[in-house]
């Protein structure tokens, strides 16, 4: 190898290492739109800062009664994902707090196969440039985290039958 080549290879290796470092920084690699909050509900601390956290597993009777957990119900509840002491954050199993914009890290804890496909743009939807900048969507833009199965929608009209065109 000529010295120039070696230098180029070294630079490339450095850049690669830099790329990995950037990837390790959550959120930096996947520019996502704002999470689909119910209007007016965020920041959660607006209401919760006055309340004393109650970490007892229970059915909520006063607030959030519209949320029916249909996602491994019985095995988990609110504070498994929402952070007890910082309501404007979620947390991972490790205890690390994350922003709602990084919720894919949370989903990815159980759905590793989907997360892997999502990262390369195969699971989920991307828009923008096929050979340039892309827009991602969060898991929760398509899947309600409390009831994640995709909900049926009305189809667009069927094509006109050839018979009807001739008339």
């Amino acid at each position, binding site marked *: 190898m000529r010295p120039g080549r070696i230098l180029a290879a070294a630079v490339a290796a450095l850049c690669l290492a830099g790329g990995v470092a950037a990837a390790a920084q959550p959120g930096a690699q996947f520019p996502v739109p704002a999470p689909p909050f119910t209007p007016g509900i965020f920041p959660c601390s607006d209401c919760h800062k006055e309340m004393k956290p109650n970490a007892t597993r229970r059915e909520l009777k006063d607030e959030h009664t519209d949320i029916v957990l249909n996602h491994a119900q019985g095995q988990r509840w609110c504070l498994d994902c929402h952070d007890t002491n910082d309501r404007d954050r979620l947390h991972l199993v490790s205890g690390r707090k994350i922003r709602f914009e990084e919720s894919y890290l949370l989903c990815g804890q159980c759905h590793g196969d989907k997360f892997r496909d999502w990262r390369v743009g195969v699971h989920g939807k991307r828009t923008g*440039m*096929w050979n340039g900048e892309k827009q991602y969507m969060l898991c929760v833009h398509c899947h309600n985290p409390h009831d994640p199965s995709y909900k*049926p*929608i*009305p*189809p*667009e009209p069927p094509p006109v039958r050839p018979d009807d065109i001739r008339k």
Partner: protein
Amino acid sequence: MPNDRNREPRALRMSRRRMLKGAAAVLGALALPGKDASAAVWEAFLRRNFREMTARDKARVVARLEKEYEAQFGKRVKVAVTPPIEGVLYGYGLDLHRCIGCRRCVYGCVKENNPSRNPQIHWIRVLQMKKEHGVDLEEAAHYYNPSKVPEKEFFYMPVQCQQCERPPCVKVCPVQATWKERDGITVVDYNWCIGCRYCMAACPYGARHFNWKKPGLPAAELVTETHYLGNRPRPVGVVDKCTFCIQRVRNVPGRYPACVEACPVGARKFGNLLDPESEIRYIIANKRVFILKEDLNTQPKFYYFYAT
């Protein structure tokens, strides 16, 4: 590649242009533009095949078309002749596990590609099939219309031009009005097409459509960013088809095809088959993939897959 991608220009050289010049001299005005026809009409009649045109020829043709379209629609239309990007071969992926049969792609395509609204032309057709039968084209339903999709017992399979690597449609065209470009897109020159519809008969995927009437395209719905080989307004009596949105994907950076962006479930994937980092290559390497009517050896670049 062992195919008829470029039947050599020699065949083209004894072109319609020359034939017609000779014929014009002999036959006079018979079936040819009248004596008082404008220069533009003559030019349109005597132009070369698109693949033989110089940059100057193209500029002249584009200028004429843009003028015609402006007169027709009262809107300024841009007709691009953007060439293929070097080192790019387009590939498309469609996740049959995700598709819910909602037809958003069909209408996303209509909105982008200026097809006739009346009579209706759709470049994408979504087939509804029974899960218990698997992929069975004989049993597929085109006109399903339940109140909501997906339905429990069905899956859905959208079909559009598969951009075959060995396209039978190209092989049968008697005037070479349709051909495969270097980036793998099969295109039609609407001004060279004679409307014989051989290609429609030859295409095993029902991907080609004929403009039986002057396309009904309201000026309000006209998309003005067009490509000569793609979504520019078509005349009556010619064939058109999906081009992977050539007017979008040939730019750097280029947008995804309209159907990719319209799909609400992200079932549609698109990228460069020659780029090992592309999502389409990931799909081919890691997922269960099949191509439609593989036994015909048309070698589609449209890959159906199951993500899970």
